[in-house]
């Protein structure tokens, strides 16, 4: 092979050589494309501007300061007198709320759906498959319409709202509390027992509770059968001795059963015997605690109403306790985790840490609430300032909401929804449009996420599961430590796409007139004539949303990538 001469060449040769250099050609190509792009864009922009300017509609951002003049439903802090940008902010807020609730809801339901699609239960698996196929193969717009007109608008009218919990008095039998205590004690006390003894004890406790419940049911509903037996406590009653004899026979019979069943059957026999005796001697009380319930949630065709949580003047003081509690809990948690690493013994670090937070929050609440409120306050009445006792002022409705929060004794006031005629005087309302759009987006996106989760779990090779099982990891350890980290690696990139889809699909809000950013800016554009600017603002808004979602998901994705050669 001949080596190219490096000797000087004449100028022409050099120029020809330079123009055939691949690096030079690439640079020229880029430059030509850039020039063409700039030309096309400036021409387009100029023609848009000139045609709009001819109608006195030069694109600008000044118009955002102008009075909006249109109503937006469900936005309490906005009025038609506010400027366009205030309307825009309401739209952004509504979109953000739909998207954030939608992302969380779709993820949770999607993961559940994915697990159901892989269930070994034939019915669960196939019903889920059927639902997913319907959702994936019908247009989202149709689903939003159905959700709005068929589901949400067919909810009961205002005056027969669904209430949760239903207003009224709920009796809680005292014996339920005894059961709860017994179950907790048995659960802890039998931990060190042999497994078969432990399961016999558990079966016995279950039999005891069942026996007592059956007796009580008969006692209350069929008094003719067992009415006279509750608390009879007579040692001479022949029925007592018959019962004892039958129970003894069951216990003796248990001895002849195969060893696997013997202990459990004996446990059940002893349990039901004790249960029957407890009833016969009237040990368990028939009384019930009466708990008065007030509705907290309302649901009707005008929306869903929640209680409002309002922070009072004392909130910041209480909040310090909570922050200190979280700090202490974090320290305790880290200390206990270190402890586990050093000794290998697992400990209940999460419950303990949560208990610390709860303790400080409750303690702080009690301390903060124990400070007295002023006996009397100053109010403006008929042009003069008078001192009125606080209680009286409250009764006479002299306090505004701000005053209430200032003079409140507790850090957070819970304002329950209160119905007044055809509206709610208090409480936080979610509009039917919001409910329909968010629900439809959640369910539609969840169907796709379910498929992604299913594929991700299936993508973990069978050998990984076998290796985990061969090492003796439990089923939950296998899922947590081997399957999930590897499945997430496959799940996250397509999941990001679905999240972006959900954010962009939220613009279908316009179909049911939900005031999201697109619906609002559409109105703004029509009304002000600044349609080009409005559309640019809408596009930039969605771009920002998408970039934020992508950035977060890329960061998450980076954490699950595998290191390879």
């Amino acid at each position, binding site marked *: 092979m001949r080596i190219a001469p490096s000797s000087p060449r004449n100028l022409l040769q050099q120029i020809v050589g330079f123009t055939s250099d691949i690096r030079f050609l690439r640079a020229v190509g880029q430059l030509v494309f850039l020039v063409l792009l700039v030309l096309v864009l400036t021409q387009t922009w100029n023609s848009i501007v000139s045609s709009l300017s001819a109608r006195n509609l030069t694109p600008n951002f000044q118009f955002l300061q102008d009075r909006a003049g249109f109503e937006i439903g469900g936005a309490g802090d906005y009025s038609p007198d506010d400027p366009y940008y205030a309307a825009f902010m309401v739209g952004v807020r509504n979109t953000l709320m739909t998207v954030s609730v939608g992302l969380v809801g779709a993820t949770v339901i999607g993961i559940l759906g994915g697990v159901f699609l892989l269930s070994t239960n034939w019915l669960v698996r196939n019903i889920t498959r059927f639902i997913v196929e319907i959702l994936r193969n019908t247009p989202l717009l149709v689903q939003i319409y159905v959700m709005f007109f068929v589901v949400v608008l067919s909810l009961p009218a205002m005056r027969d709202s669904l209430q949760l919990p239903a207003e009224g008095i709920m009796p809680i039998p005292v014996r339920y509390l005894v059961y709860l205590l017994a179950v907790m004690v048995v659960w802890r006390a039998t931990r060190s027992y042999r*497994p078969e003894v432990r399961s016999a004890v558990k079966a016995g406790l279950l039999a005891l509770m069942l026996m007592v419940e059956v007796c009580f049911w008969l006692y209350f509903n069929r008094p003719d059968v067992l009415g006279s037996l509750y608390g009879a406590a007579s040692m001479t009653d022949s029925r007592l001795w018959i019962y004892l004899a039958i129970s003894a026979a069951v216990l003796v019979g248990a001895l002849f059963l195969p060893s696997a069943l013997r202990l459990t059957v004996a446990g059940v026999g002893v349990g039901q015997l004790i249960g029957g005796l407890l009833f016969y001697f009237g040990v368990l009380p028939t009384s019930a605690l009466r708990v008065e319930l007030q509705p907290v949630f309302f649901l009707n065709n005008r929306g869903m109403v929640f209680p409002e949580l309002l922070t009072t003047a004392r909130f910041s003081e209480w909040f310090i306790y909570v922050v200190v509690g979280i700090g202490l809990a974090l320290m305790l948690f880290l200390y206990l985790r270190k402890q586990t*690493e*050093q*000794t*290998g*013994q*697992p400990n209940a670090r999460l419950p303990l840490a949560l208990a610390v937070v709860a303790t400080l929050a409750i303690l702080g609440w009690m301390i903060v609430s124990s400070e007295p409120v002023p006996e009397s306050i100053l109010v403006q009445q008929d042009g003069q300032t008078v001192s009125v006792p606080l209680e009286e002022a409250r009764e006479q409705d002299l306090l505004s909401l701000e005053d209430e929060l200032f003079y409140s004794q507790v850090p957070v006031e819970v304002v329950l929804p209160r119905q007044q005629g055809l509206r709610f005087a208090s409480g936080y309302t979610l509009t039917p449009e919001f409910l329909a759009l968010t629900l439809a987006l959640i369910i539609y996106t969840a169907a796709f996420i379910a498929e992604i989760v299913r594929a991700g779990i299936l993508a973990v*090779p069978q*050998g*990984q599961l*076998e*290796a*985990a*099982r*061969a*090492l*003796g*990891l*439990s089923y939950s*350890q296998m899922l947590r*430590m*081997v399957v999930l*980290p*590897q499945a997430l*690696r496959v799940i996250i990139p397509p999941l990001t796409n679905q999240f972006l889809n959900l954010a962009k699909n939220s613009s279908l809000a316009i179909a049911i007139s939900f005031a999201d950013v697109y619906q609002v800016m559409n109105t703004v554009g029509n009304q002000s004539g600044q349609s080009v600017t409005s559309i640019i603002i809408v596009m930039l808004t969605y771009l920002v949303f998408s970039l934020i979602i992508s950035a977060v998901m890329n960061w998450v994705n980076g954490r*699950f990538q*595998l*290191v*390879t*050669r």
Partner: protein
Amino acid sequence: MTREPIIICRSVNKWFGEFHVLRDVSVDVMPQEVVVVIGPSGSGKSTFIRCINRLEVHQEGQIIVDDIELSHDVRNIAAIRREIGMVFQQFNLFPHLTVLQNITLAPMNVRHWSKDKAEEKARELLDRVGIPEQADKYPGQLSGGQQPRVAIARALAMEPKIMLFDEPTSALDPEMIKEVLDVMKELAQSGMTMLVVTHEMGFAREVADRVLFFDMGRIVEQGTPEHFFENPEHPRTKLFLSQIL
């Protein structure tokens, strides 16, 4: 012999659908014994050793390991798996964990050892299999011969009484096979009870106390390596040996 067998199989039968994959397999394995299982592909030898830690479920017969019978009782299965280490054909290292994390995962979470103890054990084992410098790498960064050695270290970290090997060298270059077989030889000499499915006849001849020959789900012939390789009795064994030697 006064010692009790550590693995007892009595007339084990297993079907995959219609296919009768294990037929009346009965074997006892003594503690510290090295048993090599050979046979043509599809003869059920892998299925057999996978039954011993219940990665496969046998349908008839009895398998008793270390005095615990394998049944549908999850507590028995968990107890058995703690005592049996296994090395797979594809090694099945966890790709999202470092070599050290691969080895310490089970001791820390199943045996509840402290992190320090588990890591000390892991480094000791990596030393033993000859790759102490790879502790902080990920499986994807290891060479083909290093992966099975990590898999062996991972299984040994649980301090098992029995080790199962399912064709640990069949996915390797000839050069790397020796590295892995050397580790296995050392392990056999240290007194570990081993059940090895392999096509490495040299290894079987040198290390095995006993050779089992599987065909069509049956143990056709078994005996010492000398007997097996020098004077095979069954025609099927003779045919097999004539084809591979």
